[in-house]
């Protein structure tokens, strides 16, 4: 059945309105002569609506004459009619062909180049090398020799261990794996110095000469583990006499210079301060937002999604403008603007002194915590209210956090005499 229809569509068919006295006879005659009729519908007393193939129209006229019925054509469908309609609109066909060929031609160029996997190397350097090998934006895909590009990049940039160039669509992807270059052992001597003030809790020396003991208070920049190791004899001499008033040997052996390594943990204090007013006024976002997108052509804006009117009296606007790239000093005056409006409201908040104190305490601790960098162990946290003689409508808090922290930091120094 479907096949019948498909064939009818391919060869074209017509809708005919048949008027006559003896329509049954007309149908029987058509059927017996092998004329294929379908979708026969009785419309009025003496009217029939019939579909038939284009090739059957001529014999049908003959039958119509015999049965004294008249035809009128009501619709033509099928490929032959479509073709004749298209013939009248040549420019449309040319446009379609032009569009499709344009799409095809443009899709055979590389328009985007992505570099993935580079961490230390700048992408520009890789792109430059790729351009030298013939892969640049705007080259035809056929002209790009992927193997050549890969080889050249690998040759030119020794930090790369793997290069893979793949082109999918109009996008070329240069995938890169960098070599991990093992850093050379530091040969320059170094001290470990304190980066913060604190009370030394523990000293673990791997290489070097400890300069502080547990319980010492240190200031920033103070040497904790020295990279200068005195000669063993000298050292043992010193260690052997706590009073240290032994006369130094006349022959001084130069000390060893090392790159000190070790961990020095100290108790470090952080301070934070916060104040919270009892009566707070300001502007804040309500959380409602409306987004809108429009195209700006010249000075006219055409909104194509989102609301025309913004229902907020007070709002903050986030605006993102996309422009086509300019060529020389010609630019296309079309912009794609997407805006997001966030509603703002004025607020006025009254707090009780307790509530404000709780808030100020949290804020003070928060501000103290923000000074801490790196992994630490918190020993103690405390926050105190600062009371003034004449209380105003501000609650002030100061917080102290005591943490145990590694305060060591490497600092190189020049070997004397070298």
């Amino acid at each position: 059945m479907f096949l019948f229809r498909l064939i009818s569509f391919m060869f074209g068919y017509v809708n005919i309105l048949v008027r006559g006295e003896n329509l049954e006879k007309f149908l029987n005659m058509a059927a017996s002569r092998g004329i294929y009729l379908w979708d026969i519908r009785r419309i009025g007393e003496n009217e029939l609506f019939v579909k038939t193939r284009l090739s059957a129209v001529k014999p049908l006229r003959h039958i119509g004459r015999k049965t004294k019925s008249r035809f009128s054509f009501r619709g033509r469908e099928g490929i032959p009619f479509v073709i004749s309609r298209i013939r009248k609109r040549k420019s449309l066909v040319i446009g379609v062909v032009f569009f499709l060929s344009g799409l095809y031609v443009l899709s055979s160029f590389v328009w985007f180049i992505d570099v993935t996997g580079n961490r230390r190397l700048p992408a520009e350097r890789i792109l430059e090398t790729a351009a030298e090998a013939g892969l640049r934006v705007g080259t035809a895909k056929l002209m790009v020799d992927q193997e050549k590009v890969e080889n050249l990049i690998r040759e030119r940039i020794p930090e790369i261990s793997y290069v893979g160039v793949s082109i999918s669509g109009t996008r070329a992807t240069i995938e890169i794996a960098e070599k991990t270059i093992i850093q050379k052992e530091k040969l320059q001597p170094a001290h470990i110095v304190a980066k913060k003030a604190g009370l030394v809790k523990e000293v673990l020396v791997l290489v070097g000469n400890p300069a502080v003991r547990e319980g010492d208070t240190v200031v920033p920049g103070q040497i904790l583990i020295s990279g200068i190791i005195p000669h063993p004899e000298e050292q043992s001499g010193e260690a052997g006499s706590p009073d240290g008033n032994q006369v130094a040997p006349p022959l001084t052996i130069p000390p060893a210079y090392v790159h000190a390594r070790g961990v020095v943990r100290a108790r470090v204090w952080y301070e934070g301060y916060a104040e919270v007013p009892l009566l707070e006024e300001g502007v804040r976002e309500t959380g409602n937002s409306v987004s809108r997108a429009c195209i700006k052509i010249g000075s006219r804006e055409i909104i194509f999604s989102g609301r025309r009117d913004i229902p907020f009296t007070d709002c903050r606007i986030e605006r993102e403008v996309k422009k086509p790239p300019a060529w020389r000093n010609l630019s296309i005056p079309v912009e794609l603007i997407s805006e997001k409006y966030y509603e703002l409201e004025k607020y006025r908040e009254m707090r009780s002194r307790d509530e404000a104190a709780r808030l100020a305490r949290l804020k003070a601790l928060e501000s103290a915590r923000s000074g801490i960098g790196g992994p630490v162990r918190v020993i103690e946290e405390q926050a105190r209210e600062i009371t003034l003689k004449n209380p105003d409508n501000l609650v002030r808090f100061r917080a102290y956090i005591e943490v145990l922290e590694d305060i060591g930091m490497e600092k190189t120094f020049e070997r004397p005499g070298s």
Partner: protein
Amino acid sequence: MAWRDFKKRFKRQMSDMLEIPSDIIMDLPKIVLVGDLQLFIENHRGIVEYTAENVRVNVGDYEVAVSGEELILRNILPDEICLEGRIKSLQFVR
């Protein structure tokens, strides 16, 4: 007349005996009804009446009268008719 009846009976017995479908041997119409939506009549002898409510089809010895609503003839071939619409009744009219 007697001779014709005899011939008919003989054909029927033959078709029963040999298990040949009787619509082939006896030239009877084969009517297929799909719900109340579609009606196929094979081996017809032409349309006697066609309106949107009533269709009568000649099938040789008698007529098949179909009544319903919005009846359309989906297609007509020399030996097959397909009828569509809401079929209400089907009668054999002698």
